[in-house]
């Protein structure tokens, strides 16, 4: 590329970049803040036992007195998301609902959201994986066995967890956008070759991931501790029983290690594969 063309190109990229407000810093800030949200939501869910009937379509059918294909949890999520959509949620594209539906209009006052994502790739999400991971893998490890009959409160707190996890993981689209802008030549080549492995490698920083996992585990210890007025509660001691914390910190570590981080990178790769569409 001729020098002048290159500088014009760079200026254009920087201009686009500045307009969107997206940068590696803002992206990192968002993900870091989202850790607190996720930890709070898990702690709140852990207050209720497993309450299995809430997730069993047969139990819902029995309660309703007629046939049902959905568990109470599924119905609740669908209805809540419909109400939220009517109130204007999901317009900014930062969040993607679990239920597919079309809302003809929203009651929310209009707002001009800046479009930061490449339109053809903005739809990319892994909500199905998040849903199944949350109910089948995470919940049995997070909540104690038991049934306290508090199904409405329970699934309400499930929804908060799901929304937080979904927002964090699907934020991979923004992470990918920033990384793409920052290294267009490299990424473009890999995208054109559909080289998923190489893309994954380029996106991965194990050192960064290690920091994230340890920090979110620490947050689970800090936010999940039993705060009393009599003196400090030991949070740094690795020998202290995990049972002292509302949500097991090692489970939170595992959540990020096995699911949150890998799923986020999956989103990043998928997004990039559509970035040149």
């Amino acid at each position, binding site marked *: 590329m001729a020098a002048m063309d290159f500088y014009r190109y760079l200026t254009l990229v920087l201009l686009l970049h500045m307009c969107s407000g997206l940068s590696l810093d803002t992206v990192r800030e968002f993900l870091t*803040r989202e850790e*607190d*949200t996720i930890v*709070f939501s898990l*702690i*709140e869910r852990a*207050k209720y036992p497993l309450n299995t009937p*809430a997730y069993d379509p047969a139990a*819902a059918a029995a*309660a*309703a007195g007629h046939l049902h294909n959905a568990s*109470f949890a599924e*119905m609740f999520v669908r209805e*809540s998301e419909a*109400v*939220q*959509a*009517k*109130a*204007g*949620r*999901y317009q*900014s594209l930062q*969040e993607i609902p679990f239920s597919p539906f079309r809302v003809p*209009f929203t*009651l*929310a*006052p209009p*707002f*001009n*959201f800046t479009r930061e994502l490449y339109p053809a790739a903005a739809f990319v999400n892994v909500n199905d994986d998040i849903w199944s991971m949350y109910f089948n893998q995470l919940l049995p490890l997070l909540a104690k066995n038991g*049934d*306290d*009959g*508090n*199904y*409405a*409160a329970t699934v*309400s707190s499930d929804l*908060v967890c799901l929304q937080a996890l979904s927002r964090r993981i699907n934020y991979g689209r923004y992470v990918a956008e920033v990384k793409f802008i920052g290294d267009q030549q490299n990424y473009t080549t890999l995208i054109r070759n559909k080289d998923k492995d190489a893309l994954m490698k380029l996106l991965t920083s194990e050192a960064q991931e290690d*920091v994230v996992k*340890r*920090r979110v585990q*620490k*947050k689970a*210890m*800090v*936010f999940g*501790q039993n*705060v*009393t*007025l009599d003196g*400090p*509660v030991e*949070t*740094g001691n690795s020998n202290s029983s995990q049972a002292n914390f*509302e949500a097991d910190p090692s489970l939170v570590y595992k959540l990020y290690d096995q699911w949150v981080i890998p799923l986020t990178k999956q989103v990043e790769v998928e997004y990039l594969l559509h970035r040149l569409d």
Partner: protein
Amino acid sequence: MGEQQLSLAAVRDALVREEDSIVFALIERARLPRNSPAYAPAAAAGGRSLAEFFFREAEAGHYQKPEDVPFFPQDLPSPVFPTTGYTKVLHSFASAVSMNDAIWKMYFNELIPLFTVDGDDGNYAETVALDFACLKALSRRVHIGKYVAEVKFKDAPQDYSPLIRAKDTSALMNLLTFKAVEEKVKKRVEKKARIFGQNVTLEENAGKHEGISGDSECKVNPEVLSKLYDQWVMPLTKDVEVEYLLRRLD
């Protein structure tokens, strides 16, 4: 609440647990700016605000227990999935006691301006959903006062009954008030705001109970929590207790 025998210890436990929920909910709400358009009357919503629309829709189908009092009780359809396992431990007129109008006004008129930043980011739906979480937690805490009152009455009916018969509201209020306990609650909830609202990093000293960074780095000013409990939460809880007791002999 309410399955086993009611005891003051169990009720106090419930109140303490609710503190964490309240602090978390406020921290999450503080993440978004004020977003006042969410609270303004909207033509599209029949003159109601987006907040009111959301609450009316969101409350349908949940409320079963005495501490879960709806904010908009009229036109509530019967629950889709009733809460089971709940045995009645409260006096039957208890379900009529509701401080939600006062809580609603307090939250939007006094509290929101105190802990949210001026501004508008357009995320109105998320805003009202977070307000819903705050209000539910606050309402639940305040209405646990019904259980507090029941326990106190059962422990000393001879002290409460004459005052109830005489409808002596101020004497009842005196009997219910324990300043020392209230001071502890205020301090504890302020401490929780400091701990849960701090910026946790991997640095050595960060994250310890009191936190190294000042209150200015806290996501919600701990003094707001202290004021919230002192001026509104605890007085409103006692109002619920008095209201409940006044009907206890009916």
